[in-house]
Every structure is written in structure tokens, then in C-alpha cells.
């Protein structure tokens, strides 16, 4: 009788040589390069971001008038108590919220509409044209806007045929700051949307057209959902950075006025620190805004992960 044996699987032909453990110096040499490449960036981050942050936190528990000769006195939580008890903080937060809401049309709605229309147009000239305002320094732009918005001889009033005091009327100043900031960033936002649109595989729109969807439906059902990561990014940028984008314009055009009508949180912080020379109060405001924006950022990122669809 024949006996059947199972064919063995291929076995190693040679015994594996024992691996010698490299010396400590050799291991350091091998592991070091990535850290060395990172070092310059890390040093800059520490010097310009983390150290000032730590100093601001420390300063928020002290009182100091910014004079190098005057003492820095520890006051515990007094700065925070003072900050939270003034109505200024709440009012400036509310105005910041209004600015964010006012800028969103410029940073999201108009760019998406322009981007969708422009995607059907060839050429890059229009992008350069619409991006141009971003290249103008905010302070230089502010000087020109001040001239354009002049209540007497300004071009804006003449074109609109009104006699509005755009910058010094409490009802108009905030709107003016929003519109000028919007004008400034809309080109950047259009560029971001264009980049987002060009990142969407054109096969999806082709497939939807083959499937019988009209152009409007392709935009609503396919393009906009796939653009959602870009839109979430723009919302995040607007929420986190509106207060910064408006700051140079507020500082040059209205100085927070008239009667605080354009004082947002950063202008308030600046006002405490560098107009009232109350470094402790300014630092406390800075710490609160830092923590607040940190929480908002986490929330918006989590939300955008939930609602946005990534094209893989």
C-alpha cells in the first residue's frame, strides 16, 4: 500500500545570523537627523509662541503698567474678576460675533458662488483680479478707504448719492468695518474655493450628468457636498480669525469707536494693554480668548468632521 505524506512548506535554507546590537553612539546618530531637521522650527515656535504664551499666563496673575522700572505685583485672580465684572467684555464678544456673522458672506457665500461660476470660465486672470485685494497691506487699504468713505467728499457717498458718516456713525461703523474686511479677504476665500473645486474628481460630475442629473442638481447633490471640507475650513478660519482680520482696519479707521461701536475682543485687549497700560488685565483677556478660541476650534473641527464628506 502506498503511504501519502504531506509536502512540507519551504523551510529557511540557512540559519539566520544573529543581529548585532549597534552601539549607543551609532543609535543616536541614526535617530538624531529627524530631530535636527525639526529643531529650527521648534526653536522659533518656543521663542515666539510658547514663551510669550507662558508669559501672558503668568502676567495675567500680576499687575504691571508696562514700565520696565515699575514693579510687577502678584494679584492672584483679581485681573480675571475685574475683567468678568466689566460690561466691556460681554459687549466686545457680542460685537465679535456680529463681525464673524457679517464676514461669513464674504468668506463663504460669495466665494462659493464666484468659484462655481468661475469654474466654467477658462483662464487665471479673473483669479488674479479677485485675489488682488489680499495683496494690499491692510493699513494702506485703510488709508484709501478712509478717503473713499469721507462723509464730505468721499467717492462712496457720491456714488450712492447719500451723506452717510460711514466711520463715525455708531449705526454704520461696524457694518463698514465688516464690508471693508470682507472686500479684503474675499479674493483669498475665492482662491481657496477654486482650489477645493479643482480637487474634486471631474468624473463625479460626468457620472451625475450620465445619470441624468441637471446642472443645478449636480451642483447641489454632488459638488457642494464634496466641497464641504473646504467650506468647513473657511468657516473655521472666519470664526477664529475674523477678530484678527478686522483689527488693523479698526485700529486705523475707527480706533474702536465711535463709543466702542467697533471694539472687538482683540481691540479691547489692545486697549487694556497699550492704551490703559494695564498689562495684567490685557494678559487676562488674552488668556480667556485663547482658551475660548481653543474650545471653539475643537468644536468646529469636530463638527466639520461630522458634516463634511471627503473625496477619497
Amino acid at each position, binding site marked *: 500500500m502506498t503511504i501519502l505524506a504531506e509536502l512540507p512548506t519551504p523551510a529557511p535554507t540557512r540559519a539566520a545570523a544573529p543581529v548585532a546590537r549597534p552601539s549607543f553612539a551609532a543609535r543616536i546618530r541614526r535617530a538624531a537627523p529627524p530631530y535636527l531637521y525639526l529643531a529650527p522650527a521648534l526653536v522659533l515656535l518656543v521663542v515666539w509662541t510658547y514663551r510669550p504664551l507662558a508669559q501672558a499666563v503668568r502676567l495675567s496673575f500680576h499687575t504691571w503698567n508696562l514700565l520696565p522700572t515699575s514693579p510687577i505685583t502678584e494679584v492672584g485672580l483679581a485681573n480675571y474678576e475685574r475683567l468678568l465684572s466689566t460690561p466691556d467684555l460681554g459687549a466686545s464678544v457680542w460685537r465679535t460675533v456680529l463681525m464673524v456673522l457679517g464676514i461669513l458672506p464674504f468668506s463663504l457665500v460669495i466665494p462659493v458662488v464666484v468659484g462655481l461660476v468661475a469654474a466654467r470660465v477658462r483662464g487665471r486672470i479673473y483669479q488674479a483680479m479677485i485675489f488682488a485685494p489680499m495683496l494690499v497691506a491692510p493699513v494702506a487699504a485703510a488709508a484709501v478707504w478712509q478717503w473713499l468713505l469721507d462723509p464730505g467728499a468721499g467717492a462712496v457717498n457720491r456714488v450712492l448719492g447719500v451723506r452717510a458718516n460711514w466711520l463715525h456713525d455708531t449705526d454704520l461703523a461696524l457694518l463698514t468695518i465688516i464690508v471693508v474686511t470682507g472686500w479684503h479677504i474675499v479674493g483669498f476665500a475665492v482662491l481657496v474655493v477654486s482650489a477645493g473645486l479643482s480637487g474634486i*474628481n471631474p*468624473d*463625479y460630475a*460626468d*457620472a*451625475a*450628468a*450620465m*445619470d*441624468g*442629473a*441637471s446642472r443645478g*442638481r449636480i451642483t447641489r*447633490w*454632488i459638488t457642494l*457636498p*464634496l466641497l*464641504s471640507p473646504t467650506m468647513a475650513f473657511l468657516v473655521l478660519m472666519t470664526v477664529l480669525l475674523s477678530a484678527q482680520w478686522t483689527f488693523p482696519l479698526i485700529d486705523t479707521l475707527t480706533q474702536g469707536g465711535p463709543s466702542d461701536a467697533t471694539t472687538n475682543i482683540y481691540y479691547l485687549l489692545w486697549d487694556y494693554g497699550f492704551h490703559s497700560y494695564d498689562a495684567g488685565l490685557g494678559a487676562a483677556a488674552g488668556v480667556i480668548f485663547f482658551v475660548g478660541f481653543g474650545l471653539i476650534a475643537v468644536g468646529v473641527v469636530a463638527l466639520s468632521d461630522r458634516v463634511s*464628506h*471627503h*473625496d*477619497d
Partner: protein
Amino acid sequence: MFRAGSSGTVQIRPVSAIQVEKLTQRFGAVAAVDDVWLDIADGEFMVLLGPSGCGKSTLLRMIAGLLPPTEGRVLIDGVDVTHAPPQGRDLAMVFQSYALYPHLSVARNIGFPLRARDMPKRAIEAKVADVAAALDLAALLDRRPRELSGGQRQRVALGRALVRDPGAFLMDEPLSNLDAKLRAGTRAELSALHDRLGATFVYVTHDQIEAMTMATRIALLNNGRLEQVGTPEQVYDEPASTFVAEFLGTPPMNLLDVTLRSGVATAPGVTVRLDLPDRDLILGVRPEHLQLTTGDEAMLRGHVTRVENLGSEEVAICAVGAATVRVRARRPIGPRAGDTVALRADRFHLHLFHPETGRRLVPLTHQEISCVS
């Protein structure tokens, strides 16, 4: 044409015939598709075959309406649709990338064409369930495309095309992203699907096996121009040009430049009797049609440089004069590297081509030879 519908009722299935007339697509000075005329009958499985960049996908996109042609017309069932948008052509397309909408579930992907046609939600769900059951996707309906394997994505793309009973199916290399084993299985499934539906398929591929196994007819394209249109048997057995002869077959047809004088075609190592007038020509013979011989009937003489083992068969690579000739036969083929060989083939397995144009030469009468244009 009729087919039993899912609900048991008999539905009229629209089947489209597609005609392409003088279709041309130029990108700048380059003609990606150049003066293509093609009649695709209803119910046909037409494969557009050719190497990368031959214009086959461009031709398909023009039929689909995704790319307006520079010149020429597209007719569907006799109606000129050259300037109609894709939405108005009643064609379904499976993309090479599948183009599954990444933000929609499998069910919503498959149901998309029906939603675009404003079909009631309940009816969409029923139809999607039907198609999903037929394609073995029922368990995956709630998944997103990124959670699917390549084969599953391919089936979803097919489902999205099937769900609305289109006049014709356009497929752009739908199997190229699958692994070899899955591809072989899917080929058979697609053929079965075509037989079952009786619909018109226009299928783009660069894979000769897909073309040979599935097509009812093959249109071979090269540099934007049609080389040959015919059944798989016709294009393989009677290639219309050296391009077709070399594109089909593994290994491809052996082609030898020969000089025909006094009824004998000669080249270094080549002596073939041909009862034809004197002229230069290209002699073609498929590797599987060459046989080893010893006698005087040898047509080719040379030596083996290499033998390749394909498992069931072997290919002997031979040097005949300056030319390389491949012979394919069951393993073991016999001679080994270095051995001299004499080869013969049956007369009806010899192909003749024009030395300049590469077009096939066919005898018009007993002794006349002419160039087929």
C-alpha cells in the same frame, strides 16, 4: 425586445443602435480621434480596443456626450444627438474610476439616476433592492464607497448603470482596477449580463483577453484611427494590418520582411513558396501555427535563443536571420536554447501584408494580389 421585469410583468426594454459618422476630436494639432465611422447594432457587445492613447476613451466620451466632437455626428436610433447633453441620451456609463459618489451610501449611489428622474422614493427603494439583490450587494446598501473592496465598488458602479434600464451601456475599462482573478470572474459575469439583458454594450479596454472573450465585435483603434472592425474570430484570424496582427495574440504574430521572386519568398533563414507575382511583402505567421519539422518543407531555419515556460505551454524564441521568431506549443516543446530548428506552417496560416502601409494583402483571383484599403 422584451424581458420579464422584476415584478413579473413584461416590460419593453429600449435597446439603442449607435452610429458614429466621421467622428473627430482634435486637441490642438493632435487628432485624438480621427475620422471614425462605426455602426453599433442594437444588442451588440462592441469592444473598442487599442493601446493607451489610441483615442478609445475619447471616442466613448464623445458617444456619451461628455466631450463635444470637433467634427462628425453621433446618432442613437437614427436620431442625431451630436449636440445633445449626456442627460438627453439615455446612456449609462461605468467609469474606470467607478466615480461612486463618496458622500452617498451604496443605496443612494445606485438610486441616484432614479432620484435624478424624480421617481417616487418608494419606487426607488424597491428598484435599488432588486438591483442590489441581483449584484449581491444587499448587505452593503448602507455602506459608503470607501468602505468597499475594489470588486464591490465595481458592482455598485454596474448597479448604478443597471438600475434605470438605459438604451445602451458605455463602459470605460471597468475591470482595470481589479486583480487578475476577480477580473476573470467579472468578465464571465459581464458576458452573462449582456446575454440576459440583450442591451447594447460599448466597452473600452486595452486588454485583448477582455475583448476576445466578451465582444460580439471588436473595433481596433490605433492613433485615433480605426484599424479593423470585426468579430473576435475575424480580427484574430484575418488581421487587417500588421498593427492588428501584433496587438492580438500572446506572443504576437511573427512578421518577416521577405522578397518574393519567381514564386519563392526569401529572407535570411526564410524560404517560402508562394504562387504569386514578384514583389516585396511582410509575411506573418502566428506562434502557435509554427511546427517543428525536419524535412524539405522547412520554411524557416534558425536557432533557439531562449525557451519560456508558460505552464501548459512553452514559447521557443528563435533567431531566424536577423529576425526573432516565436514558436508556441505544448510543453515540452522539444528544442532547448542553442539548438538549431527548422519550422513550417500550413499555407492557410500564412498572412501577407503590404511592406509600407502594413495593410493585409488578399488574393483577388487565383494569381492576383492587391492591397485592401
